[in-house]
């Protein structure tokens, strides 16, 4: 059980929460995630990246977008409520060293997991260029925090409502063309964005890490639901990842696997809403 210490709405359906979790705060490293459940009996286990941690307060920060029933319910919880199941830190931490020049690309909510990694890379002495992007201005998150870390900072929006009117791949390509080329690129965001970031850096042979957000059940290597094809080898994202060489990941397969339950989830979701509506009617 973990108490919600602080909650803030970052954009239309993106929320930030600080949760009481002293042990996780102590052990976690950049790149790791937690799994949580909003209901111990019927809730599903959802993975969320640890965006930040405060050892003194004994808390971790998560940032999530409302995309389904569990995140919707989580977003409705308030400060002082308890999240019944919270487990972590899971996954292999990001390998941090002084690579030299690093480009960090964050798309939409992906900026949240990117933040601790960019911070750690900066602390290790890297020259850090940060590119963040979103569909529109309203969906840009953590701009100030990222700007504070970056040696160079670029914001793009798809519709041009803020910063450059571009996809993140455009400035990424420019960075690759500069001399010397980047020693490392890290891209975190929607699968399609990561796929195209990897395709962008490939011709320049810039090593590119991506952080995968597959479906998970246990998060400890027991079920294989999180598996992805990396260079023809099956890898389990929860224990082998979440970070992999973006040039080797089979993104198309990963994207179709992410949609495994799309049809059902929609239906379930409606069905729950229907039920709620019926209950209301019954009360009248």
């Amino acid at each position, binding site marked *: 059980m973990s108490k919600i210490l602080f909650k803030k709405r970052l954009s239309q359906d993106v929320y930030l929460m600080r949760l009481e979790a002293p042990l996780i705060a102590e052990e976690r490293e950049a790149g790791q995630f937690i799994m949580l459940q909003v209901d*111990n009996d019927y809730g599903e286990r959802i993975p969320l990246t640890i965006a930040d941690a405060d050892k003194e307060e004994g808390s971790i920060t998560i940032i999530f977008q409302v995309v389904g029933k569990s995140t919707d319910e989580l977003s409705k919880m308030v400060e002082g409520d308890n999240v019944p199941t919270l487990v972590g830190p899971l996954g292999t931490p990001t390998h941090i060293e002084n690579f030299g020049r690093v480009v960090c690309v964050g798309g939409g909510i992906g900026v949240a997991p990117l933040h601790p990694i960019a911070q750690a890379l900066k602390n290790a002495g890297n020259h850090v260029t940060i590119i963040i992007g979103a569909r529109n201005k309203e969906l840009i998150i953590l701009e100030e925090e990222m700007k504070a870390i970056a040696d160079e900072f670029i914001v793009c929006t798809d519709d041009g409502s803020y910063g450059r009117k571009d996809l993140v791949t455009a400035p990424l390509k420019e960075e690759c063309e500069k001399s010397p080329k980047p020693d490392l690129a890290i891209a975190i965001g929607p699968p399609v964005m990561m796929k195209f970031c990897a395709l962008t850096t490939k011709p320049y042979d810039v090593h590119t890490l991506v952080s995968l957000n597959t479906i998970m059940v246990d998060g400890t290597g027991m079920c294989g639901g999180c598996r992805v094809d990396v260079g023809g080898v099956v890898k389990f994202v929860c224990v082998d990842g979440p970070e992999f060489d973006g040039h080797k990941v089979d993104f198309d397969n990963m994207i179709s*696997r992410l949609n495994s339950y799309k049809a059902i989830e929609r239906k379930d979701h409606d*069905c729950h809403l229907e039920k709620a509506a019926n209950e209301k009617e019954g009360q009248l």
Partner: protein
Amino acid sequence: MSHQSPEMLAEKAKELLVEYLARYDEMKPKEKMAIPAQPMREQDPDVRNKNLEEVAIGYTMEQARVEAMRCLQCKKQQCVADCPVEIDIPEFIKHVANGDIQTAIDVIKRTSLLPAICGRVCPQEAQCQMNCTVGKGLKDVNQAVAIGRLERFVADWEREQGVVKIPDVKPETGKKVAVVGSGPAGLVVAADVRREGHDVTMYEAFHKLGGVMRYGIPEFRLPNSIIDQELDTLDKMGVKIQTNFVVGRTRKLVDLIEKDGFDAVFLGTGAGLPIFMGIEGENLVGVFSANEYLTRANLMRAYDKDFADTPIYPSKNVAVVGGGNVAMDAARMAKRLGAENVYVIYRRTENEMPARNEEIHHAKEEGIQFHFLRNPKKIFGTEDGRVKAIEVTKFELGEPDASGRRRPIAIPGSEYIMDVDTVLVSIGNGSNPLISRTTPDMKVNKWGNITVDESQKTSMNKIYAGGDIVLGAATVILAMGEGRRAAAAINKQLKEEIEAGK
């Protein structure tokens, strides 16, 4: 045999008991062997394959006593020798025959801690019942004394009386022991170590306790209420429980000793990492490990479609690959979740199947279709990446291999295609990598299983291990046996420390 109604079986046993009681004391072995074996009372196959309730309903008192009367009370107790924890089988059965169930349970509990569970899931036909004199005499292992069913009856009786005895706990010693994992191995260690008065904390990665017994073995075979009962006993004994705690991640293994002051640690983290076949199409949507499918259905309650948030893949035609208990559970669960056709694809023949006989029998009754001597070659997908068919190769049995089983050999050109929308892979597990990856000093073998000495001690001081993490995917009773051995070693270590004034 067609399904016999539970009521009829109960009535029949009542009559038989009256008849045999009158002359039990004078009965010769031959007469005892003529007593009809008592069938388990079961739900009708066509009803149960649509519900999650336990398939086997259990013996009545009369059935149990009649079945117990079949035991010959042999001098050379083959059944005891074949039981991994050496339960005094003829002794407990004698008390059942006499109707003294309390004494019977006391006898079992001298050596076994989880009889309600073992009675349900042990592979009896390969253990205690394998060489039973009665089965041998009748030339059919299925005619052996039904030791497992009797064990289950006795344990259920105790639970239903509400008189489950909480083991005595000795005065606190001040020593602290961490138990990692709450499967059968961990449960047994927690109980045995706590009994000696040591302070025990059990850590579990999941939000619910019980290990595979909770997330793998389905409700229709092992109801959760039975696991809850065992956990309740541990709770009453004062075992502390910490769920949502992944040792190696939430806390490093060595930190449990160095920072948290534990005097000993037991690792019962079970098998992990499901093995896939490595064939084309295995990452298509609709291919699952049996572990994932069963975890969704059991632990995450996806069978309860109206309430659970965790979805389960909707299937019409399902191929289950493998021949063990896990494959049987996955197949029968798929049927219960609404699949029309469930095919089990197994490389060898029925004789070689590692699953319990009873499960194979139940699966057939429930309409699962078996395709023996077949192996998948390739899985075909639709344009949007979903399973639409599976190609299988036919096999024949060749010469016996090292294990003595006849080796299956592929028949060239025998491939054919079956239309399926779901493939459940159940060909075994690797070992749970979390502890070894986060604990560089821990010695493991080439399959990643933790290596231990004969007292279950690992290569690291004060750290013991047992169950599937040591044996590879094995059984509940073997996990329990290893747990008992580890607990004895831990208790010995702590006793010596206390005596030395440490």
